[in-house]
């Protein structure tokens, strides 16, 4: 399956009615990356993610796993989709299904397995994302916001996808859960070779897991590269994130890295 680049976005333009959101955006995600997309609220991160997931009309080209998603047939699209796990910003669980059923949906749609086996797999995923077994029988409306996020992550992980798209996975999680999340993501990335593309505002999580990233702003990509490259960019907003009051973490991280 074509080369080392799993996602390539070339000359992407997106606009809603008269408003341009993206103008000539180019990014690429390599196999095995944990790729973070950062940027101000409203800079079009979710929109970019939606475009990659073929949920959003765009101009330009997006190549995922060697297939151009704009020109590909429906069958090709569905093959790609099966290799992608997605978690939306608002969790978006099916409200009329229990958590267990929510997570099992794509497994049940794709293979015929005994009920017990499905249940075991689902419960494993629940445990993996740090949820108790008893949420299995609960409905989304009976979970807290953070629990919903975790359940949505478990649903995204159910098929052990090659590509994992996460929109603000750690927002609404307590610091410990967020750290567990980082650990889980790193493990999955390393052991299963899952490539992760995520939008995040959480600096801790960003520094914990990111191997490559891009900064969106002003309708374009302000910078792309390793977190290390990013900070060298001369941009006021980028400087503010990393050197502002909240950027202390980064400075520590940077020192630690220097001392290696």
């Amino acid at each position: 399956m074509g080369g080392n680049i799993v996602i390539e976005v070339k000359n992407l333009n997106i606009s809603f009615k008269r408003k341009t959101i993206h103008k000539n955006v180019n990014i690429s995600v390599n196999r095995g990356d944990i790729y973070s997309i950062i940027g101000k609220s409203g800079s079009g991160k979710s929109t970019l993610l939606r475009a990659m997931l073929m949920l959003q009309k765009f101009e330009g080209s997006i190549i995922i796993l060697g297939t151009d998603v704009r020109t590909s047939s429906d069958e090709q699209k569905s093959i790609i989709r099966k290799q992608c796990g997605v978690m939306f910003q608002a969790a978006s669980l099916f409200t009329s299904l229990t958590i267990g059923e929510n997570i099992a949906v794509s497994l049940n749609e794709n293979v015929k397995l005994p009920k017990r086996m499905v249940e075991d797999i689902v419960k494993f995923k629940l445990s993996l994302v740090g949820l108790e077994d008893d949420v299995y029988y609960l409905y989304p409306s009976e979970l807290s916001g953070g629990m919903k996020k975790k359940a949505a992550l478990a649903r995204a992980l159910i098929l052990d996808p090659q590509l994992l798209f996460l929109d603000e996975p750690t927002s609404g999680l307590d610091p410990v859960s967020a750290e567990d999340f980082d650990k889980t993501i790193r493990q999955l990335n390393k052991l299963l070779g899952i490539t992760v593309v995520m939008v995040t505002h959480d600096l801790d999580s960003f520094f914990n897991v990111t191997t490559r990233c891009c900064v969106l702003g002003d309708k374009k990509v302000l910078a792309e590269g390793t977190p290390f490259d990013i900070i060298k960019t001369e941009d006021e907003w980028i400087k503010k994130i990393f050197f502002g009051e909240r950027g202390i973490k980064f400075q520590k991280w940077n020192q630690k890295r220097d001392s290696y």
Partner: protein
Amino acid sequence: MIEVKQDNDIVIIEGKATYSELPKLMDKLNNLSKPVKTIDITNIKKIDTSCLIFLLQFAKRYAANINCSKNDKKLLEIVKSNLKETTPKKTYHDKFFYNIGVAAYRKLIELYLFFGFLGEIFIHFAKALTHPKLFRVKAIVNDIEKMGLNAVPIITILSLLIGVVMAYQGSIKLKEFGANIFIVDLVSISITRELGPLIVAILLAGRSASSYTAQIGIMKVTEEIDVIKTMGLHPFDVLVFPKIISMIISLPLLVILADIAGIFGGAIVANLSLGITYYDFYLRLSNVLTLHTFLSGLIKAPVFAFVIAVIGCFKGFRTSKNVESIGENVTISVVDGIFAVIVIDAIFSVVFRWAGI
């Protein structure tokens, strides 16, 4: 894609073991000749967690070891540490009478809650009378436009057609008796007393009650109702009253419209198939259709309006926080609305008869 080989008590698995191959893997392993002492997956190309879960369970059952590469070993550790013993869920047998009982009980509870809701509305209404500001004129007018004005075309056409059909059916028999002019009595009385109010009420039960239920239900799911509460507003003021009041205003007006359209439909048929001129029709009509007859139909309209709006809103508040429940409650609100309208109409008929109206 997946291959399973057995060498005495060693099982060697090769190829790609992903979820899509899992049924095959399960099938093959479960049909092996036992005992199995070792499962060797060192040469496997790819394995995912779902297959590992099965392998682990399998290995545990036969107390077998799993040989694997270093990377897979770590993965295996993760799977192992997250895998718990699951107890099979209790299965409920179908209990026929039990289910009937539960359904009946639910219906009673629902009725109980409905009367509670009704009581709440009256109490709140009494309060609102002393604070006229609580009536939101803008919302009411907006609702009258959407639920009343926009229903004008469909109601006109429907009633016109009903008038036409009735007159046409009646005209055949009336012609035989030479009692042509009585077509006016037939059409005007039945439309003003019964059919006009009923058609409008049933149509609005389908049109408005459903939209009220869906609107309030979705607001509940998205927690907008809670937002309204936290703003110090009462959902009744914001959502329920405007709907009830606008319905009480627009439904009688629509009934008048339906009466006129229906009678006009009758007049057309009378003219075409019985040869009664519009002027004759009009003369007869002013004799037959007393104010009293007209009002005895119209008086039902506000009652229908109230019931439809209240049922629509009540069902909206009764939705639980999932999408399926919205669909369910919308259906129920329409069905219950129509049912209530017809029952109330029957009650009116009986009462009118007693009272000699």
